[in-house]
């Protein structure tokens, strides 16, 4: 836990340092407008930077002072919090399925939300890679190596973590390439036999792997893998498998909430800002894959190009994938049926 804390502590320190400054400005103008961005687990550092950049941009453009709050946790958990009444203005979650649930259950935004912003409302993409220990002692090169006996695989619980759902689907796609749906099921059954600890969220799993020294390989968001390397340096190595999945974490405005808070203009501005060159640059800097070609080109050298399946092609969209794999009693639950 301790090694991951400095970044958070730095964040707190930054917030504390910025507070008098912001408060001073607030007195000069009007009271700051509060915006709450409810996001998934590994985006803490990214949105901390984006929020600072957007607040400066918005101040210059409109003179309004912003107080942008961010909340992080497993994607499913965050979606449920919003459904249960957490007053988010915008959600930036790990997968479209979770925002669909918010639309369906709490009716906070229309069902066609994903068509309201460019690129399926996903300002950046990412993928799932392997993080292994230094020197790769178990010689893990591809998906096939993960199901070998004696290999410990760390991944969060796909029931609660968006990243884990992408990882699960990437694994399933690999398995079904070998032998259709049965091959996919067979592969993930073997894979989860090698999982000794199921964390609730991506950060949780990273801590288990990096701090507690459990397991030989972490199925990780690409950006989280790079962040771990940044934090722990040479103790870990990133391995790109032969194929993975194109993860598209979407963003959306919660219409009912922004109308209640009278924040529609600034919330819309915030989401549009994510597509701006400045934000795309930050996205690339934090090891996500920007949509903006210039930013993508600038950071392309660090990120390897591998074949990626998409959720729509390989699984027929989130609705179908959830019903087949993650619903109560569906494929994931069947893995854990006692034989």
């Amino acid at each position: 836990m301790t090694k991951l804390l400095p970044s958070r502590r730095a964040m707190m320190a930054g917030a504390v340092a910025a507070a008098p400054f912001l408060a001073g400005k607030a007195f000069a103008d009007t009271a700051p407008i509060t915006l709450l961005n409810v996001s998934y687990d590994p985006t803490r550092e990214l949105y901390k930077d984006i929020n600072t950049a957007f607040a400066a941009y918005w101040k210059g453009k409109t003179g309004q002072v912003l107080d942008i709050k961010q909340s992080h946790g497993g994607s499913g958990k965050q979606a449920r919090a919003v459904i249960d009444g957490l007053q988010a203005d915008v959600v930036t979650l790990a997968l479209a399925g979770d925002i669909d649930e918010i639309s369906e259950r709490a009716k906070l935004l229309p069902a066609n939300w994903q068509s309201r912003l460019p690129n399926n409302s996903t300002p950046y993409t990412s993928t799932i890679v392997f993080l292994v220990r230094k020197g790769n002692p178990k010689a893990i090169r591809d998906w096939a190596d993960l199901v070998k006996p004696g290999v410990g695989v760390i991944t969060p619980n796909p029931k609660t973590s968006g990243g884990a759902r992408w990882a699960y689907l990437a694994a399933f796609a690999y398995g079904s390439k070998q032998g259709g749906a049965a091959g996919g099921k067979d592969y993930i059954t073997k894979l989860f036999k090698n999982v000794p600890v199921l964390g609730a969220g991506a950060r949780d799993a990273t801590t288990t792997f990096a701090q507690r020294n459990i397991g030989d390989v972490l199925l990780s968001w690409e950006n989280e893998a790079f962040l771990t390397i940044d934090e722990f340096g040479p103790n870990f190595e990133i391995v790109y498998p032969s194929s993975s999945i194109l993860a598209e974490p979407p963003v959306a405005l919660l219409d009912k909430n922004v109308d209640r808070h009278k924040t529609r203009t600034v919330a819309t501005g915030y989401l549009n800002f994510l597509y701006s060159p400045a934000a795309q640059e930050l996205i690339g800097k934090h090891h996500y894959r920007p949509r903006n070609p210039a930013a993508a080109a600038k950071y392309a050298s660090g990120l390897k190009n591998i074949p990626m399946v998409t959720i729509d092609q390989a699984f027929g969209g989130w609705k179908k994938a959830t019903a087949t794999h993650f619903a109560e009693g569906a494929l994931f639950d069947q893995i854990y049926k006692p034989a």
Partner: protein
Amino acid sequence: MTAQAILASPTKARRRPWVQHSILPGFGLSLGITLAYLGVIVVLPLVALAIRPWELGPAGVFHALAAPRVLAALKLSFGLSALAALLNAPLGVLLAWTLTRYQFPGRRILDALVDLPFALPTAVAGIALTAIYAPNGALGALAAKVGIKTAYSPLGIFIALVFIGLPFVVRSLQPVLQELDHEVEEAATTLGANSLQRAVRVILPALGPSLISGISLAFARAVGEYGSVVFIAGNLPGKTEIAPLLIVIKLESYDYAGAAAVGLAMVAISFGSLVAINGLQLMLARRGRA
């Protein structure tokens, strides 16, 4: 005050024969507040919980509860909680005994330490325990050398439950031990009892009821413990997934009714065990009095 006035009040009370008359005033008001408070704080949320699962229908509730994963989680939670409470019983007696019967330097500090698991935020306890018992932690590495897996196994959960349960046993026993008259033990000695007889036939019976209530408190707390356990358990369905975690997971997959069904089952089992423990306590108390 005349004799008639004194006699008058019992006749008044006879109108409500189930109420034992008390000479203290304010019964109606205090009972009213008690009922209203318990109703709002305890009964109302439980009723809400009890109503929720039935949207699945009786068959649906049965189906939700009969799932092997749910049964395994309930068995794990209640089984390990009982074991942890039982381990805390003898050790709790020993600790309470040492802390009340002997005077030694540092006694007060030790006494304060007992409360620590109680006062610590559960997540902090979880992180601390995991850091120690993980395979790269101090104790975890030792255990791993002899081939015992502590963190991320049922044993890890057990350790966490023992940790959080300890203060309940010790704190239930201490006041009783303090009140226990030395004269009684001295009398037993003069009557020829040896130290074992004194412990088993004089002290233990006096401690019985409070020991049982301490055990039941530790048990009840352990059953509901979430914060410290999720860190140290591996959270694998069917193996190291506790019932409270299963509830959280069900909620996060939007299965509100299923989560409530597991919750209701936990309440029912907990309530049943507490009633049984209370019955045992009553029995012991009666025997002690006879």
